[in-house]
């Protein structure tokens, strides 16, 4: 299966048109297989006792970060729906919604980057060599973020930056309230832009699916709760994290 589709440019030369949307099915199936596989494994595994959510509450996500997360989540979902549905035959005027949510996503991401750079400890989400021990030795507990969460964050970071970058370039090809299209990008370059946008979108579809799946897993549900209400319990902390590596302050409650 090809990664890209091709077209002729204005002078009849072959150039890239964009990502091959046959990949959409590949991606969907792949995501489904991984999720199903994981679910089965987890089902047969013996359940660990679920740590209690009562007692002392510890702040995991500040309001600003939670808002950022959900804004980003919403815009990504809207972008996926408006971007992909027309391709699978569900037709509606999608472009305007698409580029507006694209701008929302861009703003959110900028906000997050600035905040992360100047107000937060970058390295708590940075993957480091020793994190890998988590994978083999269940006694090794992570700091604030597990290696899985760090990996997810890293992947999303890369993909979203690619989508945003290519997406912004595409503004040269459409009219907006602020400017008219310029057709200034050569068709060959444009092809690459569309290809990057398409491929990173396809990857995002899979990653998003996994992210949602893990967020809904019973043993991980408290993380989702923390992304909504901000806190986790002392037990949850003890069961999943190494106090040496992450000892957050108590919540005011």
């Amino acid at each position, binding site marked *: 299966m090809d990664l890209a589709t091709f077209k002729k440019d*204005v*002078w*009849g*030369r072959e150039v890239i048109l964009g990502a091959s949307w046959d990949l959409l099915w590949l991606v969907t199936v792949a995501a489904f297989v991984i999720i199903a596989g994981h679910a089965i494994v987890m089902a047969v595994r013996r359940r660990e006792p679920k740590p209690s959510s009562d007692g002392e509450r510890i702040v995991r996500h500040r309001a600003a970060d939670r808002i950022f997360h959900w804004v980003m989540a919403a815009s990504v979902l809207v972008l996926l729906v408006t971007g992909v549905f027309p391709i699978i035959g569900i037709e509606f005027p999608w472009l305007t919604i698409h580029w507006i949510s694209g701008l929302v996503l861009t703003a959110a991401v900028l906000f997050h980057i600035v905040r992360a750079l100047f107000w937060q400890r970058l390295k708590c989400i940075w993957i480091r060599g020793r994190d890998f021990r988590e994978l083999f030795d269940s006694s090794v507990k992570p700091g604030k973020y597990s290696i899985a969460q760090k990996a997810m964050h890293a992947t999303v970071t890369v993909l979203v930056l690619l989508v945003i970058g290519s997406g912004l370039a595409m503004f040269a090809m459409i009219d907006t309230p602020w400017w008219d299209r310029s*057709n200034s990008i050569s068709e060959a370059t444009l092809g690459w832009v569309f290809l990057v946008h398409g491929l990173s979108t396809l990857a995002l579809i899979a990653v998003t699916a996994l992210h949602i799946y893990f967020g809904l897993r019973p043993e991980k549900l408290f993380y989702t709760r923390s992304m909504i209400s901000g806190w986790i319990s002392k037990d949850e902390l003890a069961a999943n994290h190494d106090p040496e590596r992450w000892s957050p302050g108590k919540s005011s409650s």
Partner: protein
Amino acid sequence: MSNYRHIGKDFLPPDIVGKVTGKAKYAEDFSVDGMVFARVYTSPMAHGRVTNIDTSAVAEMDGVVGILTADDLPPVEAPNAPILTNSPAYIGEPILAVAAVDEKTAEDALARIRVDIQPLPFTVDPLDSLVEGGPDAREEGNVYVRTPEGSGFRTVKWTREQIDEFRAGNEPTGVSVSEWSYGDLDQGFANAKVIIEEPFVTVGYAHMSMEPRTAMAYWQNGVCYVYGSAQSQSFMIPGLATLLGVEQKDVVLISENTGGGFGSKIGAYPMMALPAWFSKKIGRPVQLRITREQEYYIGSARVGFQGWIKVGFAANGRVTATDVFIVEDIGPNATGGDGSSAGEAVSIVYDPESMRFRGVPVLTNTTPRGAQRGPGQNQIAAIMAPIMDKAAKQLDVDRLEIRKINAAHNGTTANTDQEPVTSAYMKEALDMGAAMFDWPGKRNKPRRNGSKVVGLGIGQGYHSAGATGYDGLVRITPDGKIHLHSGVGNLGTYSYASTTRSAAEVLKCDWDNCVIHHGNTEANLPWSSYQAGSNTSFTHQRANYVAAMDAVNKLKEIAAATLGGNAADYDIADERVFRSGNPGQSMSYAQAAERAIELGGLYSGQTWPGDIHEVTQRAVQNLAGSGLIGVAKDNLPQEGVIPGFAVAFTEIELDLETGKYEILDYVGIAECGTVIHPQGLATQMKGGAVWGMGMAGHERHVYDPQNGLPANVGYHQCGVPTYLDIPANLRTGAVDLPDPQSPFGARGIGEPAMGCSVAAVTAAVADALDGHVFNRTPISVDMILNHVAGRPQSFKPLQTNNY
């Protein structure tokens, strides 16, 4: 002219029956055994260099017979148009050809061939190339100069300020490469009461003849038989021989009918030679019928103008001075010359007391340009008419009067060296037209009716209309038939036939007893002129006259030799030569032909005059001994400019709400000396009228400047006028006063017939809009709407090849 027997009478052109029955054969209608069909691959890029041609995908294709590329052909040096090229300079330039058992297979093959082209800078607007730092249409330069000292490419640039000044409507200060003048220009403007100064644009457009030029060719014992679409017949041979790299005697051109020329098929052109080269390569007859789109590409187009003109008028309307500057859009192949022709037209039609012309022919990567019906004369006619009216208004002179006071007459002098004219009766033409049109009456009619406004226009057209020095050939055979050999092409004017009638007139013979030979080199045709520049009628009336006179002299000499006495004692009548005063002592043309064969020598073509062209010599050689041969070169005296004039009066109704106008009435008057073929003249005047209406309101090249793409490659997009875009009736007339330098007084008319029309219409539009001059052709619906609504036009000043 009733004292003539044939001149001035209608007749049945022998080819017309074939035209209404479908039996008339055009190049594409011939087919021979083993013939294969070619298709050409044309450049998708406005300017580039072919880096690779990959034909591997077609090598094994069933039915594909061969591929021809530029590498199979002798190199051609620019600006001459190559047959096939590896360095295309316009979209649509032929790069390769494929031959196959049928057209579909050839196209299937084309679809699989890969051609890689490296793009080069290109331009579709001369001013974009003329400005400093602008792209050049060719690597050799952006201007082509033709001077007596020598011709060649040059790179000419103006500063951005100079371009902006020009666009702003001011006198161009950039360099020009051609210039001529006469009289004292400054004095002329000093004497002027009113001076009109205008920038102007005439956008070029495609010829779009009905027949997409087709050619079929094969070789037989070293002789190449070409079935082509040609505007001329004999005149094509030298050029064709050069294109094929053979001697003239080894080329046979069959061109019985031609589906329109209008200047696009004057000389031998590359596409005509392609099948011959292809046939040489694959050893089979090859037919090439190009597509309509390709006819747009290579069928040539009118040169576009971006200019500035300043005209001074004395109080009585007399033109005291004219200063013209023209930037010519000459396409990629350095044709043109329209600019200077425009200047010459002004110098004779309005006869300014002083004048200057300056011009720059700039190359663009648009379709190749060529002569198109009134090349230069008609563009300037369209621009001048409203300017004359503007002056008339300011001087409070009648629009007809201002034309009459400047009208060309027998004393008019023309061009830079102010030559005399052979004759000119523009004033008479204006009077005749005004009467037919009822100028005074129409002028006083109410002008406004709801959203509709009436506009009246007077147009004047001119083109030089004659040449000399070509050959005539007539032959009388023992069966008494008079054979009129015509090397004139058949592009629809019937001049190939009408000009031979002067031979019949001289020979005092019955038309039904005449046989015209034409349309095939093997029919032994004399050397003839280019069927262009409206020259055929004048030129070949003379050539046929001298040939017929030669025959008459030979008849008399033969009679004297046979019946006694001197040739001078003899006269001719009723196809007999008899002794004056003793009609009994006579012999028939048939008997004279018999004797001519017996006598041989000059009489029956064993020998011939030394000054006739080799084409004619071969014809005579082949005819030797078949009868009495009358052959001669036209050495009749000729001096001065031979003018063809036409004037038109038109009434339009312009709808201010839709921007559309309807042409209600049209009167076209020819001033081309004696009328030799009334019906033929009328059709020329009407056809010219339609062309003028197309140029005035519809037709133009449109190119996308970013990608160099042509917008209008088809009939609909080109805006060729339909039945419903012209008046339901067209009226014509002719002054019919003989020209002294033509045996029967005729001059040509084809091109002026159009110039007067486009001029009348542009003037009428200006009249309907209270004298607003667009200084542009075509004047399209959008321009009128924007003007009426007080909106700016969409194009920037002097922009060309645009909507």
